[in-house]
């Protein structure tokens, strides 16, 4: 961080985030090995999103940096979700 008060993440916090990420990895591997049928995609994507949030907030420092980066990231995510929703609205109502 290079703004007024640079936030220095502690080594311990990096280790904690890694442990959380590894636990979530174990969770996703064990959950998907049980056959949940159509649910397994949603569960896997939900856990992946949690991992991504941890990486973005802590490793990529969005939580501590200036809020302009967070704002930009949110806009991009909203754009991406809009594209997903529109694409699937299109394909769901097509006649195969």
């Amino acid at each position: 961080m290079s703004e007024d008060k640079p936030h220095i993440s502690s080594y311990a916090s990096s280790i904690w985030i890694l442990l959380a990420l590894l636990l979530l990895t174990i969770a996703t591997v064990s959950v998907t090995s049980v056959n949940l049928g159509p649910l397994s995609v949603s569960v896997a994507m939900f856990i992946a999103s949690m991992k991504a949030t941890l990486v973005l907030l802590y490793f990529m420092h969005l939580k501590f940096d200036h809020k302009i980066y967070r704002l930009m990231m949110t806009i991009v995510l909203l754009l991406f979700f809009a594209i997903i929703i529109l694409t699937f609205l299109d394909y769901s109502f097509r006649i195969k």
Partner: protein
Amino acid sequence: MEAIDHNSHAHATPHRDDTASKIGMWLFIFTEILLFGGLFIVYSVYRYYNPVAFHIAGEELNDFVGTLNTIILLISSMTVAMSITAIQKNDKKLALILLYTTLVLGIWFLVNKYFEWGVKFEHGLYPGSVLLPKLGTGDTMFFGLYFMMTGLHALHIIAGMTILGFVIVFIHKNKIGPDKYVFHENAGLYWHLVDLIWIFLFPLFYLIH
């Protein structure tokens, strides 16, 4: 907005704007997110049309290698994050050790990928092979996307390692230091992006059957 306009290091280097260079890096990262995001949508649509073929083809992939590579990348993300902490605390030696560790982990990831792809080639599962068209459209699409997306990701690993190599050189030359590390931060952001993409590639290809 004052915090953006105000540059606390202005006295040391008059023409430096760390916030601007980080915004530039983030803008580049957004283009990468949308690039891979588009590929994820392509994957989802083809999966929606070929559920059975994608299910069976997905079981061909080695879950163990996929999980191992996930763990390797997560650890490498932590070492990069820690190397920035080290440079902020003026611990040059530790920062370098952590960065070299990251490079080793990156190479390990690529070696695993090499063997993983090698097995697929041996089994005749690669775009343009004789076997693949016989298996049907779904399998052709699955393996096309598998090689395309993991290959593009592997290229990003190589690019990320190159950038981290520059960080190492700059730290040796004292061009990166405790009051001047925005290049190091931006390189870290790129490496975390590579990790971020893999976080989604891994369940989509290896786990969901």
